[in-house]
Every structure is written in C-alpha cells, then in structure tokens.
C-alpha cells in the first residue's frame, strides 16, 4: 500500500493506460457504453444551456438589427408579389412539364415518409470525427440509420444519417465524414457511384466506382440513389468539382462539393424511414 502511495503517479499512469487499451480493444460493451452515457449525461445539460443562451442572445440581436430592414423588405416584397402573380400561369405550365419528366425518369414526386424537425445542439469537439448532435432521440421515434436532411433553398438536401440514438438526443454522421458511405447517381446521365467524405479536415466528398465512360461535367448535380437502403431516391447531395481518371482502374474518381455547408447546418429534418437491412448489409461489405 505504501508503495502505491509513494508511486501514485506511475501507478495511476499504468492503470489509466491499461483502461484505455482494454476499452479500445473491446470497443462497444455495456461497460464502455455506460461510461460514455455517464459522460454525456454530465456534459449534456451544460451543452443545452450554452446552446439556449447563444440562441437567445442571437435571437434578441437579430430582432433588433432586422427591424429596420424588415420595413424596407415589406415594401419591396409587395412590388415583387405583383410581378410574381403574373408568372403563375407560366409556372403551372412548367409544373405539368416537370411532372411528365419525373414520370419518365421514374423519380417519386415527393418523399413518402413523415419527418421530425430537429435543431443542432453540438458538434464533435475534436478535429478527427465530424458528427452532429441533434435534440431529438429515441422518445421522438428516431432510430439508427434514419436519413437526415435539410432544405437547400426549396430542395431537400442530404445532411447525413443517424448513427447513435439516446433518450432525447441523436448523433448524425454527416456526408463529409470519411466513415460515411452512400449510393448516389449523377442527375444528368444517371451513372451510379459510391460517395464518401474526403478527409477529416475537408468539407468535400468523393465518389468512387464511377465508370470511365460516364460523362462527368463540372457543376453536374449529384442526387441520392436507393442503393444502400438508407436514403430515398432523388435527394440533393452536391455538385461536381472535378473528376480524375485512375490509370490502373476502369473507374474514375469524382470530387464533390456538398450542397449544404457543414458549418452552417442548424436546423435539420429526420426522415422516419427504416433502413432496408438486407441492402444495408450488402452495402457495408463495400470497402
């Protein structure tokens, strides 16, 4: 006992090192999960409180600064409204054409699932993992592998998927994470590919397994495909930045800029769509 007290620094170091190595070796067990649960339970009230303060202060400031601009906006919006009313006839024509094209392409008119609105309460505190924590959890019907989207203008764009669910919070793996994988297609030529995050410090993604024969253009739109069984088809993913041919391969590699900026995601929607387990298992085998 005296030895332990005298060499407490070394003893503690050895004990902590063993704890870390054992914990990393066994990964997810009830012990590590409960320790992590205690950790998040300790820090979550502070996170929620800080989030509330920041949002509250931001709201007051925005209300104050936007009051003047609001008055001018109302005036200009009235003028615009008159202009847009005349466009309604033209829009109805476009709608009909759009409907016809959607039928041709086999896309669904809208996503036939219900969704839950959620706010981002925190993000990963380090630079190696890029996950987002939202304020909806198991009690709101959220389950692992449910798709998460946000609005990019009027379009539904992919944010990521749920990877961890607790009582009132969930963890979202965003598309820029290197651990993320999803099936995508090029909107123009319907070529398929596999999208992943480029690196831990980048906000870009790359698409592998794109056939060299596929005509990939700068700015081309990428949408989700149903491969993988998680995402519904037709959600906006991003646009093509560049493509690189790989000499020894029959495929080309495409770098994609996601439609949504990871740093400015604050409000999201979780689509209540259970993943197709068989497709998901097949998809996980792809490396």
């Amino acid at each position, binding site marked *: 006992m005296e030895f332990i007290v005298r060499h407490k*620094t070394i003893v503690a170091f050895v004990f902590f090192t063993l704890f870390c190595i054992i914990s990393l070796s066994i990964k997810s067990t009830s012990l*590590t999960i409960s320790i992590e649960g205690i950790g998040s339970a300790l820090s979550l009230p502070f996170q929620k409180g800080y989030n509330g303060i920041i949002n509250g202060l931001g709201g007051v400031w925005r209300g104050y600064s936007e009051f003047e601009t609001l008055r001018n906006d109302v005036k200009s919006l009235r003028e615009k409204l008159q202009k847009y009313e005349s466009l309604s006839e033209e829009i109805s024509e476009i709608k009909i054409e759009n409907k016809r094209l959607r039928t041709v392409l086999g896309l669904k008119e809208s996503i036939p699932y219900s969704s839950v609105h959620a706010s981002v309460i925190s993000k990963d*505190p*380090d630079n*190696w993992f890029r996950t987002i924590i939202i304020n909806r959890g198991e009690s709101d019907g959220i389950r692992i592998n449910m798709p998460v989207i946000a609005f990019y203008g009027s379009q539904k764009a992919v944010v990521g998927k749920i990877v961890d669910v607790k009582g009132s919070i969930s963890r979202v793996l965003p598309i820029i994470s290197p651990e993320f994988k999803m099936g995508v297609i090029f909107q123009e030529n319907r070529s398929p590919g596999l999208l992943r995050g480029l*690196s831990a*410090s980048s906000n870009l993604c790359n698409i592998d397994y794109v056939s060299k024969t596929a005509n990939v253009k700068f700015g081309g739109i990428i949408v989700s495909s149903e491969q993988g069984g998680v995402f519904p088809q037709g959600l906006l993913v991003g646009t093509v930045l560049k493509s690189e041919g790989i000499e020894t391969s029959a495929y080309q590699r495409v770098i994609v800029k996601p439609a949504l900026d990871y740093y400015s995601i604050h409000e999201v929607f979780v689509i209540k769509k259970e993943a197709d387990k068989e497709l998901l298992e097949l998809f996980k085998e792809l490396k």
Partner: protein
Amino acid sequence: MIYSYIYTAILVIVSLVIQSHSSFDVLRIAGVKPDLLFIVIIYVSYMFGSFYGEITGFLSGILHDSLSNSPLGLMTFPKMALGFIVGMFGRTVIKNNILTILLLLFTASIVKGIFMLFLCYVFHQSLASSVPGVILPEAFYNAILAPPLFYIFDKIYQKEIERESSH
C-alpha cells in the same frame, strides 16, 4: 487545493461545451479548430505536476470521448499521457515565457497527434489516413492560442500558484 480542482472542472466543461458548439466552427482554419481542452490539460500539468495532469487528462478525455463519435479511450489516452509527460518537466524545467509556451504546446500537440495516429493504426484503421492532415494545422493553432490562454489561466489560478510556491 480544492479551489484548483473546482477551477479545473469548470475550465474543462467550459472548453468542451464551447468546442462542441456550432458557433465555434467559425474559428476553423484549414478545416481545423483548436483543442481548448488540450491547452487546459497542458496548463494544469505544467503548473501542478504529473499526477494532477494525468488525472485531469484522463477524466476530461473520458468526457471528450463521450461527446465525440470516437471509441472510449482514443481521445483519453493521448490527453492523459501528455498530462503525465508535461508534468514531469513542469515549470521547474520549462520557463514561463511566450516562446517556450508556444514551443511546449506545439510539441505537445504533435506528440498527441502521433499517439492518435498510433492508436488509429492499431484500433481504428478507417480514421488513420485522415489524422496526418490534421496534426500540423492543429499544433500551430494550439500553439498560437496558448500564450493568451496561459495568461488568463495564470490569473484564475494566481492564489493557488502563490500558495504552492510558498510551500
């Protein structure tokens, strides 16, 4: 000493909460944000020695792992080990001036990155390729932020440091 425990607990929680809030993303340079928690750990181990440093590193590392998507231990081990190593030298060896603090944080962040890289290769291979691109920018960022933060921490712990020095 009880006050320094309370101050450290507050600093750890505040740095974790700030670091994980979305608004902190505006501070990212080259896709990397500073590790405030790590700066706190290096400060306490530098000021109060190995034992205090490794305990702070271990407990705050567990909190960090709980908030992050990382497996339990991946963030804990580098923080705990650096708390132990820096505390061995401490203020008796490393003089408290801007240049040495810059170098201390830069070197400690690089060593932390190397530990991370090693653990990733052994336990979490999918992440290993991403780590090198993060180590250097993060080390620069931590080093630049360290002198002003050390100055603030000196003010917070002033009474405790004076009491320790008088013993």
